């Protein structure tokens, strides 16, 4: 069990979905891959297909249209899959809360593993969020062992 979590956390392949973001968060995610931050040294890669993904990164406040796609995408992903909400938009719907195309919060639709607040979050914050996710996985595993 411990080995499994260790392997999973050492090679996280990330699929990135923009559920109606203002594009700022997406740019910050790409920043994580640049030479300055270089998350490939932790084994993290951006992949193009949800079938290869271990982490589903969601940016943007969901509206009625993207919620369907999001749910569909989550069901298409091979389990175990972890969901990270990047930016304040998916965390709390930001200033779009209560406006007419909004449906509900992200975690009422699919389970969310880690929240990364910020508008947009800095690349450091995103890396810290991923580290939080890794810590959470290994901590869960420790509890399971006892």
């Amino acid at each position: 069990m411990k080995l499994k979590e260790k392997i999973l956390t050492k090679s996280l392949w990330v699929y990135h979905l923009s559920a109606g973001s203002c594009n700022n968060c997406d740019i910050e995610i790409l920043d994580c891959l640049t030479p300055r931050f270089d998350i490939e040294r932790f084994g993290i890669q951006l992949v193009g297909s949800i079938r290869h993904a271990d982490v589903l990164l969601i940016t943007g406040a969901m509206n009625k249209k993207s919620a369907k796609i999001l749910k569909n995408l989550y069901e298409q992903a091979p389990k175990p899959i972890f969901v990270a909400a990047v930016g304040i938009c998916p965390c709390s719907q930001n200033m779009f809360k209560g406006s007419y195309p909004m449906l509900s919060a992200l975690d009422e639709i699919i389970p969310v593993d880690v929240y990364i607040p910020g508008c947009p979050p800095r690349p450091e914050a995103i890396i810290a969020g991923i580290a939080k996710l890794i810590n959470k996985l290994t901590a869960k595993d420790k509890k399971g062992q006892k």
Partner: protein
Amino acid sequence: MLKIVTQYLIFPGIIFSFFVGAMGFWLERKFTARFQYRVGPPWYQNFIDVMKLFLKETIIPRNAAKTLFITSPIINLAAVILVSVMLANNYFLNISFMGDVIVILYLLVIPSLFTILGALSSKNPLALVGAARETKLMLAYEFVFITSLIIAIIKSGNSIMLANITATQILSKPNIASASGIIAFILALFYAQAKLCIVPFDMAEAEQEIMAGTVIEYSGPLLGFYKISKLMLYFSLPLFIISLFIKVHTQSTLLKYLIFFCLYILIIFIMSVIKNINPRMRIKDALGFFWFWLLPLGILGIVLAQFGL
């Protein structure tokens, strides 16, 4: 009996070739990272990636042709394992049989063929685009590689046995030390580049346009099989090039391995240089490059080889 088992399973068989291939792919990633002033992944990254894929769930699309979808990665891997074991046994232990060059040529077509079939069976439109591109690319590079192989065969006195090709190089001089040999080496390098889907020729798996293309619907262990076969190709194609063109003879075993690893790293380095200074070609440009530039070069090489140059 035990000797044969270790010979095929461990050294220089499956496990050795997988290990070296994974290290080769890591080197390629590391070189790329260094070209971009990045740190790059740790050396064990590819092993972890493969292991992780075997821990994940496999999803089979509802519309897919199930049997073909499941068997094609497995056949792919089987063909690659055969090629790697044959090549490694020839290079390190000098085991060979009549006509094995032709067998290897056929076996090397199988991975691309079954990648295409697997993509077609998944019925994903992006996978279809990837499969169409891979088909066209195959038409381009296979023919070029055959000309390069013909040059090596002519140089060895028309022998289609890998051991004879290496033996002639040991007796006289490596093939690459002649004009036609250099041409054949260049052609084979471009072939390896296209076969491994490295950047100027990676239209079939273009991450940014068609989302991993041919393997888009694969997940979990089935994707793991593809990954392993790609890693093993990273070992066997450079090894094939080395044994065809740059076989150097030495008495001591240590020096033999040292030379192999130096040449291997050199070939991986050249490939990653080509990768990092080129953008992805369009399929039309790639076809033109292979047919109108490399193919005439190959024919010139054959003519030169006939005159013993």
